[in-house]
C-alpha cells in the first residue's frame, strides 16, 4: 500500500516540527527517513501512524484513501517504537497476541487462530522458544524482534519503525538491520523507518528521504542521495566530505589556490560559492599541474584497514582536508608526514551562494 503525504504541517508550541511536508512512498518499498535530531523525521512517522495530529490542512493518503482524520487504532499501521514499548506485564506470546485480542468480537480470530498466527510470527522472527518469556528476560535485539512481530500480527498495511536499531549496540545493530532487509524482501510490506545513522539508511533502504528543519531535503535511492546530493546539507549529512570556500566566475572555479573548470557556471558573473568533495574523490599527485591542483601539506597517514586515510593541511589557508586512497595507491605514493603534495578533485560539487539549487554536479 502506497503512502502519500501532502502539505503536512506540525507545530509543538512555537517549534515548527514539520514544514509543509509532501512525500510519496511507493507500495512495497523500504524507505528510510534520515536526518539529524530535531529534523522532524520521527514527527513525520508519528503523524503517518496517527500518534500525532498535524495542523489542519494537507492530507495523508494510504493508497488514495484519506486517513488524516482516523485515529491511530483505526489506521492499521504497524508501529515499532525505538524503545520497543513492549508490555512488561505480558509474556512474549501475549504481547504478540495483543493486537488480535483487542479486535472487535465480530472480526476477532478464534483462540486457535490467534495462537497459530502468534506462533508463526514468532517463527518468522526466530524466537519461537521464547513465547512464555517476559520482555525483561530478553536481550535488546530479541525485544526489537518481538516488537516487530507484535506490529506484524495485525497484518498492517504499512509498517513504521522509529529508530529501530537506535538502542542496540553496534554489532547487534548491523546484524539486525540486515535481517530486517531480508525480512522485508520476504514480506514486501510498505515500510518506513526513521534513523539518524546515514550508514544504516544507505545500507538497508530502497529509498532515502533526507530531512532537515522539518522539510524534506532530498528523496532518492541510496546511490542517488550519496552520489548526487541535492544541496550542501545533504552533502554534509551523508558521508564524510571536505568543503572549501570558493569563487566561481564564468565557467571557472577558484578553490584553495587552484583554478578548476566549472562548466555549470559558464557565462556567470563572479560569485562566492562553496565546494564539496568527498575524501575518496581526491587524487594525490606530487607535481603541480599548472594551478589545476590544490597544494597541501601531509600531516599524518594511516594505512590500517582496507583504505588508507591521509590528513592534510591546505597550504593556502591552513584548513584541514581528508583524503582516502586505495591501499595500492597509498603504497605506491609512499607519502611522508611534512611533505607537500597536490590534490586534484575528481568530482567537485559547487554551490554558488546566491542560488545553491541551480548548480549541477561537475565531473572533472
Amino acid at each position, binding site marked *: 500500500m502506497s503512502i502519500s503525504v501532502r502539505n503536512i504541517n506540525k507545530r*509543538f*508550541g512555537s517549534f515548527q516540527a514539520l514544514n509543509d511536508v509532501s512525500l510519496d512512498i511507493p507500495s512495497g518499498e523500504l524507505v528510510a527517513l534520515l536526518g539529524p535530531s530535531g529534523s522532524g523525521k520521527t514527527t513525520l512517522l508519528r503523524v503517518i501512524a*496517527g*500518534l*500525532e*495530529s498535524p495542523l*489542519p490542512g494537507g492530507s495523508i493518503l494510504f493508497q488514495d484513501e484519506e486517513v488524516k482524520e*482516523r*485515529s491511530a487504532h483505526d489506521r492499521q499501521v504497524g508501529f515499532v517504537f525505538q524503545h520497543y514499548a513492549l508490555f512488561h506485564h505480558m509474556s512474549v506470546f501475549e504481547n504478540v497476541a495483543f493486537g488480535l485480542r483487542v479486535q472487535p468480537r465480530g472480526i476477532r480470530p478464534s483462540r486457535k487462530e490467534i495462537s497459530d498466527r502468534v506462533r508463526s510470527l514468532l517463527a518468522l522472527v526466530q524466537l519461537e522458544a521464547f513465547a512464555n518469556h517476559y520482555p525483561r528476560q530478553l536481550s535488546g535485539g530479541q525485544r526489537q524482534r518481538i516488537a516487530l512481530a507484535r506490529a506484524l500480527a495485525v497484518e498492517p498495511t504499512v509498517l513504521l519503525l522509529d529508530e529501530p536499531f537506535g538502542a542496540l549496540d553496534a554489532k547487534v545493530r548491523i546484524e539486525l538491520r540486515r535481517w530486517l532487509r531480508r525480512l522485508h524482501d520476504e514480506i514486501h510490506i510498505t515500510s518506513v523507518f526513521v534513523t539518524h545513522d546515514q550508514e544504516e539508511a544507505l545500507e538497508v533502504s530502497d529509498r532515502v528521504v533526507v530531512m532537515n528543519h522539518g522539510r524534506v531535503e532530498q528523496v532518492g535511492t541510496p546511490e542517488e542521495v550519496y552520489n548526487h546530493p541535492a544541496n550542501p546539507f545533504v552533502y554534509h549529512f551523508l558521508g564524510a566530505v571536505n568543503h572549501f570556500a570558493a569563487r566561481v566566475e564564468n565557467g571557472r572555479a577558484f578553490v584553495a589556490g587552484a583554478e578548476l573548470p566549472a562548466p555549470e557556471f559558464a557565462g556567470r558573473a563572479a560569485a562566492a560559492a562553496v565546494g564539496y568533495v568527498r575524501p575518496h574523490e581526491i587524487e594525490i599527485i606530487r607535481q603541480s599541474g599548472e594551478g589545476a591542483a590544490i597544494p597541501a601539506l601531509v600531516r599524518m597517514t594511516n594505512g590500517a584497514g582496507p583504505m588508507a586515510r591521509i590528513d592534510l593541511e591546505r597550504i593556502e589557508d591552513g584548513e584541514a582536508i581528508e583524503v582516502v586512497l586505495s591501499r595500492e595507491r597509498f603504497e605506491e605514493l609512499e607519502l611522508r608526514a611534512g611533505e607537500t603534495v597536490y590534490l586534484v578533485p575528481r568530482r567537485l560539487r559547487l554551490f554558488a551562494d546566491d542560488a545553491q539549487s541551480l548548480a549541477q554536479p561537475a565531473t572533472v
Partner: protein
Amino acid sequence: MNTTLNAPLDLTNDAPIATAATDPPAVRRLLIGLALGFLGIFIFLPLMVVLVEAFRGGVGLYLKSISTPDARAALRLTLITAAIAVPLNTIFGLAAAWSIGKFEFRGRSLLLSLIDLPFAISPVISGLIYVLMFGLQGWMGPWLRSHDLQVIFAVPGIVLATMFVTFPFVAREVIPLMEAQGTEEEEAARVLGASGWQIFWRVTMPNIRWALLYGVLLSNARAMGEFGAVSVVSGHIRGLTNTLPLHVEILYNEYNFAAAFGVASLLASLALVTLAAKTAVEWVSGRSHNRLH
C-alpha cells in the same frame, strides 16, 4: 521527554483528532471534576471549616481562646515534647541512614522493616506499650514508684510516646536517598584524606540536606499533632499533661466549639506551614518527578 505531558492544554485542544495517549476533553473534564470534588470534600472543606469555626465568634474571642492559661500550658508542653523528640529522632535517622545507606551487611532489610514498625502500629497501641512498661502495674512500675519517678501520666511518658510515633520519619526520608547516591563520592573524599566527620559534613550532608529537612518537618508536624498515643499516656491533667491536640479534644467535648476550633486552627496552620515548606523543599531540590526524567 514526552510532548503530551508538557504541552499546554490549548495545543491538544485545537488538534482535529486526539493523540493516541491523550484522553478526549470530556473525559479529562470529568476526571478532573471527580478528583477536585473528592479532594474538596476530604481536604479543602475540613480545612475551611476549621478556619471558619475558629473565627465565628470574632477575632477577640479567637485570641482569648488561644491565650487561656490552659491553652498556653498545652502549647508549652507541645513545644517541649517536639523539642526533645525531633532532635533525638533526627540523630537516630542520620545514624541509621549512614549505616544502612552506605554499607552492605546482613540483616539490613530486617533492620529497615524494624525501623518502619511504628508506622504500622496503631497510635493507641504505641501509647499502651509505654503504659505496660512504665505504668503503675507495668514492668518497671514498682521500681519507678520506689524511686518516686513518674513516667506515665507525666511529661516523660508523653515525650516517649511521641518519640515512638515519630521514630521512622527522618530515617525514612534519608535512607533511600543515601542508598541511591551510593558511596562513590564518600570514597573519593576518603581517598583524598578526609576524616569521617569531614566526609559526612562536606560530602554527604549537602546531598541529603533537603530530604533531611523534609523528614524533620514531617517528624515535627507529627510530634506536635500526635493524638492517640499521647492521649493514652497523658492522663489528661489540665495545665500539666495536656498537649494542644488533647486540649482541642477537651474543649470540643465540653461543647466549647469556638475555643476548640481556635486551638485547632493553630495546629492546622502548623500543618499548612509544613506542607508549604515541603513544597518549597521539593521545589528547591528539584525532586519533582516530572523534572527528574
